[in-house]
């Protein structure tokens, strides 16, 4: 039980450091994957919606503090992502969610929500075409995150029984 709380907390700080130090070097035309988002979705699917919502809030808070960005923007978006990902949580289907194609798909959905909510919070007074926002600021970063999240499938121990 304690492991369910300690491991997410311990993994969060290194993930944030990797996000701000290494991730910018693998960006494609300004599109970045979001490691913290992958972590939030992963642990939400493992532990539950309530935990995921609170973990998203804490992860967003830590990310905003350490990256120097607008304090509250990642808090808002990651809380929402944790909550929405929690709808896919099922204590009988944890392995199915974490070790199959479902994980990248859920990360993709959460990534779109994450990008769009950050846009509305921190890019409030900017003028952009809505389709452009959905594709370049919503879908593309989410696809990149889902691609990275694909490899997270191999981290969880356990076998999926057919």
């Amino acid at each position: 039980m304690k492991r369910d709380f300690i491991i997410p907390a311990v993994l969060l700080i290194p993930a944030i450091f990797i996000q701000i130090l290494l991730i910018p070097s693998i960006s494609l035309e300004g599109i970045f994957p979001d490691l913290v988002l992958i972590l939030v979705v992963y642990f939400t699917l493992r532990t539950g919606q309530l935990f995921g919502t609170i973990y998203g809030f804490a992860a967003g808070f830590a990310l905003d503090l350490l990256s120097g960005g607008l304090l509250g923007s990642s808090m808002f978006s990651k809380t929402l992502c944790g909550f929405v990902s929690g709808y896919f949580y099922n204590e009988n289907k944890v392995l199915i969610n974490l070790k199959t194609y479902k994980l990248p798909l859920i990360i993709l959905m959460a990534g779109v929500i994450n990008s769009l909510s950050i846009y509305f919070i921190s890019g409030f007074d900017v003028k952009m075409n809505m389709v452009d926002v959905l594709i370049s600021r919503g879908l593309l970063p989410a696809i990149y995150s889902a691609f990275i999240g694909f490899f997270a499938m191999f981290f969880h121990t356990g076998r999926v029984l057919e």
Partner: protein
Amino acid sequence: MVRLLRQIWLNFKEYIVLALLLILSLLIVSLNENKQVKSFRTFVFSTFAAPTAFFSDALSVSDLKSENLKLRLENAELMLQVNKLREYGIQNEELRFLLRFRDTSGYTLIPAGVIAKTPESFQSIININVGSSEGVVMGMPVITDLGLVGFTSNVTDNFSTVKTLKNSSVRIIVKNQRSRVEGILKWDGKNLLFTNIPKTADVKPGDRIISSELSSLLPTQLPIGIVTKLENPDSGILNEYSIKPFAEITKTDYIFILKQISGKKSNGLELNYFNLRQQ
């Protein structure tokens, strides 16, 4: 009553927690400019900036060799240019003396390394490894050898954050170097824009954009970028042009801080004027 509340909590606890956390997040967003929040952020930033700088230095070792070669080449090219400019400088000095102009150059540059970058499209921020111990204060322009990058915001003893031009909260007055048309430079999340330009103004793709003397943030005319295209040819009463910045804002690893705040210089002048009037 207690039973009812308990029932509501059991059935809707996820929604209640979500609502509370979202409201708290929005509240914190609105308090970003609050003094206590800023102090707290500065404290956390200064605590974690040191390990960040350590890892950043360790990771950048492999780039040093190619960076070194590139810089040597640039050095050689600049040496040739400097020689030429030295000649012009001598002529300039003689002419200034004749015309009694004041010397307005002589800015101190503080070199710094970029230790972290915020991967957000609207709030581009970089963290650098110099702070108030080197004389950095909030509001100082940050440049590379190519042009303006941004301005310092949070400053601690040994580290600082820089809001780059690709940050939606940064807006500066700039002008077209050729036609002297002035406008506002801002970031819309996708493009750097030269905005508030009358439709009759003479601005063309390829024009150089530099900082304006009207800007209270910049002490001298710094190169910003090149006009690439007109964004809204058929709509509105004012034009917007997209700008390609000279400095590689999100890819730069080394920057310089211009050790001067323009506002204080002009504030000092105004103060002198009022003092003289009172005498």
